[in-house]
């Protein structure tokens, strides 16, 4: 562990210094394995949030009763060491030289691999149009909020929806993702966009099914479901 940063009260980014890390592609994840003194092992997958070429970083949400995430979020200190396996994944990945417009749909911590894509786009100076639709519970729960504001512009757009509580002056959406909201935000089907949807199983299924109803070809839509155990 080379450093840490709180993103929200429940979510922390850990920078990792991994000897011999071969580098990753935006969207990939890694597995963390913790071993207790009695030999008991627990293993979980976490998406890489950093762009390729940056210091490797994962962003982890604390799941209550979890075996791994409470340690990573609350306990892990600079200099701690644990086993990682990766980079993993060849399906849920995006390359900045792909010219097709990109729609990113994130539910909560599902934003992490999509943030790697947004950072990679900025880092490479790509002009590919990219739009992030980001669903969070409250404003306080919005992961990477300030950095997303800073990244916006030059063909990168962020649209927020807050499903549980909205500030009085809120100008974004204030409900769960539905077909009307997707119709407002998504690229027209004629643009044949690349789509990445990441979040809980129900979030991902709702988002992907809604986009298919808008006329999206299921082949354009890549999904990654996050588990409810941490």
């Amino acid at each position, binding site marked *: 562990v080379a450093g840490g940063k709180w993103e929200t009260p429940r979510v922390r980014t850990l920078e990792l210094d991994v000897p011999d890390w071969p580098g990753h592609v935006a969207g990939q994840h890694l*597995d963390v394995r913790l071993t207790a003194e009695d030999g008991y092992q627990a293993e979980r997958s976490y998406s890489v949030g950093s762009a390729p070429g940056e210091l490797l970083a994962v962003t982890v949400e604390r799941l209550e009763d979890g075996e791994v995430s409470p340690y990573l979020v609350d306990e892990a200190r600079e200099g701690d060491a644990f086993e990682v396996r990766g980079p*993993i*994944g060849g*399906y*849920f990945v995006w390359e900045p030289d792909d010219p097709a417009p990109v729609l990113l749909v994130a539910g909560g911590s599902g934003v992490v691999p999509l943030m790697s894509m947004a950072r990679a786009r900025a880092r490479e100076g790509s002009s590919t149009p990219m739009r992030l639709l980001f669903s969070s519970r409250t404003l306080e729960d919005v992961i990477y909020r300030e950095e997303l504001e800073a990244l916006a512009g030059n063909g990168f757009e962020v649209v927020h929806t807050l499903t549980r509580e909205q500030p009085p002056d809120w100008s974004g959406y204030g409900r769960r993702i539905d077909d009307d909201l997707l119709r407002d935000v998504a690229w027209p089907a004629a643009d044949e966009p690349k789509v990445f949807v990441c979040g809980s*199983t129900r979030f991902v299924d709702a988002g992907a099914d809604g986009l298919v109803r808008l006329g999206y070809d299921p082949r354009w839509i890549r*999904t990654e*479901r996050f588990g*409810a155990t941490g």
Partner: protein
Amino acid sequence: MEMRDLVLDGNAIGGLLHELFGTELTAAPCVCAGCGAREEMARLDVYVDCPGVVVRCRHCTNVMITIVQGRERSWVDLGGTRALEL
């Protein structure tokens, strides 16, 4: 939590598959022996909260792969997979 929340996808076992087969498999097309549907591993339904790992076809729910890990060995049943494209 409802049953549906426990369904992950092939991305979740990318590390395990890499360890067992020595290569990246989440983008590998798999053909279901039950209905013939062809989907990338990442698009299959995966259950990890059972004894072992169960991979099911997202179209017909046929069990395509089961993986059980013991202390010194792993046991992989591919009976429900007609073909795996590498």
